């Protein structure tokens, strides 16, 4: 019985896919030399596939420079994809990104200061997508809608006619979120929305995002480097290293049974109050290699503490290994035939 139920659940979820990404590659060209020729590429995102379901929060986690933000930008078509496919529901959007999708997919950036025009009033900032995408023209209509939006993010009437510099960091981030909500989006891509904020303000924003997600049934793609944040707010998680996924699964899968060596190290590197996790800390040596000429085989092998135990780390690219229905890793098999 239970097996059938689980299958039903999965097929039900399949129907609810909002964004599908298949074999996405985004390369940035490097120009140089005498005639400013293309002399190489940075493989920012290298063969990545995932699904985003309605009403869920998918975390995209990794160190700086691993391509998290590039995935977000590519979905929004701010950066052209080199190859691969991106679908919104059933429509392909990577080569045909119309205004309609701009409404449905919105983004919140890391630094609220630089995403708000300092010379514009809050009404105009939040009203801009209403004018451009929704085609609203009457000022009174726009004001009414903006006030509605401000109220959903717990702000008040008197904030309508102020300028961005009059607000604190947390309030600015609320304004940015209100603007993202303006066109009733189905997906919001959040690029490190809380990393510029203090812990207590971060808590406010995370609570707000949870409420909004339930209220509007939003799918959130949450890009962050803070593992505890995603552990708190996320449903599923993708761990990235140098443009590739290394582990994916539900929060419980990844946080309680991390299997890929990089994920293990990343999880153990978090500073915690708990003295037990501190004792078995894995400290990685060296630094993230350059994405211009990444190491051969598995990109992680020069730093991998478990390299001795696996076969062919420096020769072959890692393969996708399923651990359970939801939990996958990219790694090489063990030498002694041990299972993951």
């Amino acid at each position, binding site marked *: 019985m239970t097996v059938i139920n689980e299958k039903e659940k999965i097929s039900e979820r399949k129907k609810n896919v909002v964004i599908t990404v298949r074999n996405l590659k985004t390369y940035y060209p490097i120009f140089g030399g005498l005639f400013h020729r293309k002399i190489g590429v940075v493989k920012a995102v290298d063969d990545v596939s995932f699904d985003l379901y309605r009403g869920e929060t998918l975390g995209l986690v990794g*160190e*700086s420079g691993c391509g998290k933000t590039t995935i977000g930008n590519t979905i929004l078509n701010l950066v052209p994809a080199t190859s691969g496919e991106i679908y919104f529901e059933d429509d392909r959007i990577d080569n045909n990104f119309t205004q309609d999708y701009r409404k449905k997919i919105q983004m919140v950036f890391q630094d609220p200061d630089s995403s708000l025009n300092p010379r514009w009033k809050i009404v105009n900032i939040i009203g801009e997508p209403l004018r451009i995408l929704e085609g609203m023209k009457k000022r009174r209509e726009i004001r009414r809608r903006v006030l509605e939006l401000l109220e959903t993010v*717990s*702000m008040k009437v008197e904030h309508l006619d102020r300028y961005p510099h009059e607000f*604190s960091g*947390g*309030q600015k981030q609320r304004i940015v979120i209100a603007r993202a909500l303006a066109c009733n989006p189905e997906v919001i891509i959040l690029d490190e929305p809380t990393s510029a904020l*203090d*812990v*207590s303000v*971060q*808590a*406010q924003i*995370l*609570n707000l995002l*949870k409420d909004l997600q339930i209220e509007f049934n939003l799918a959130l793609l949450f890009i962050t*480097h803070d*593992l*505890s*944040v995603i*552990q*708190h*707010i996320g449903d599923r998680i993708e761990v990235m290293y140098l443009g590739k996924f290394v582990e994916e699964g539900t929060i419980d899968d990844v*946080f309680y049974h991390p299997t890929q060596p990089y994920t293990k*190290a*990343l999880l*153990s*590197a*978090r*500073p*915690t*109050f708990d003295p037990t996790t*501190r004792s078995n*800390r894995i*400290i*990685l*040596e060296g*630094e*993230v290699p350059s994405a211009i000429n990444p190491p051969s085989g598995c990109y992680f092998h020069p730093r991998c503490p478990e390299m001795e135990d696996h076969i062919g780390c420096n020769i072959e690219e890692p393969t996708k290994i399923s651990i359970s229905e939801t939990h996958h890793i990219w790694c090489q098999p063990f030498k002694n035939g041990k299972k993951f």
Partner: protein
Amino acid sequence: MTLTEKKEIIEENRKNQMKSAIKEDSNLLLQVKNLKTYFYTEEGIVKAVDGVSFNIFKNEVLGLVGETGCGKSVTALSILRLVRSPGEIIEGSIEFNNVNLLELSEEEMRSHRGNDITMIFQDPLNSLNPVILAGDQVAEVFLLHQEEELNKIIDVRLLERDKLVQELKELKKEFKENKEQLSETEKEEFKVKIKDLKKKIPKAPNLKDVALEKAEQIIKEVGIADAKQILKRYPHELSGGMRQRIMIAMGLSCTPLLLIADEPTTALDVTIQAQILDLMKNLQKKFDTSILMITHDLGIIAELCDRVAVMYSGNIVEYATAEDLFKNPRHPYTQGLIGAIPSVEKKDTKLTVIRGMVPNLIYPPSGCRFHPRCTERLEICDKIKPRFLEINDRYFIACHLFDPEYKESPKYQWDETESEESYKV
């Protein structure tokens, strides 16, 4: 084990602790008393640090934690007397090894900076000079503060060199005198000998070369394998982790008594942060340095620090050993701060939110500065400033809830609608 035996052991432990506590008092390194640093701006006086007192013992790591704008960094800068105009240290004393730093002349202060007390800043790219080689920057510290020691090394080397030069001279003399009596083969032998000796004589050492050698040593110490290569690189050629290691190397180069680290890992990734924290832990033991660790990350404090001071709006509100503080935070602000950190246990519940915002430091709230945001607020809280009391062994707190004199004051009734509103900031 019987109960009495257990009691005995506990009793003995307590005595030992008392002894160590007394011992530590004689080990006092830095004592900050009632420090006040104000900034005189056009809008008014910003009371960035308003009556802060704490002390650091030898070989101890003290954590200073608080939100943005609570005066953590200004406290650190005040210790080094680096507060820039319009800022000014108004009151208080900073005793370092029984010398009040605030009474020293600028010249004397400069001999302490970078020598006994050093500082690591948050952003290593901004604190390194972009047009000077990394090695030269580290070597500069030695040239500035350890010239005497470098000269000693040079003297020793010069003596050795002089010996060799003398030897060479004698050999040449011998060769000249006996030139006619020697056979061809013997002459050849002599020439080879002279050549070998010439090779052995090193270049005359100069200050900068010796300083660079020392720099190489210290850079190796902070876990950079190819130190020689790194010496000849510019800061922009190094990664974030490397730069921070160079900063730490500069900080530790004179084996300081006190190292002030101002958010040393905020600009770094988690895995690199773990490396740097591990390094600091090891170096602290190796060099017997005390560290004042300034951060907003309570996790780092729990990892690294022996004691913690929690700052709020220019005051220290709670000051205790890390163990006590994390096991049982007492001040409502500390409780709120710890409650705001996302974790697994809080997954299905909402995070605790401290109502309201950090107050303006020009017109800080009356009485306890935390009272407009405090859930445990008493009637007295907005009238009288709480005293900084030691309620337990080495557990200090500034809160009326723990002050026997005001404890009995009636609880303040929050206006529900008002509190509802003030949550939404």
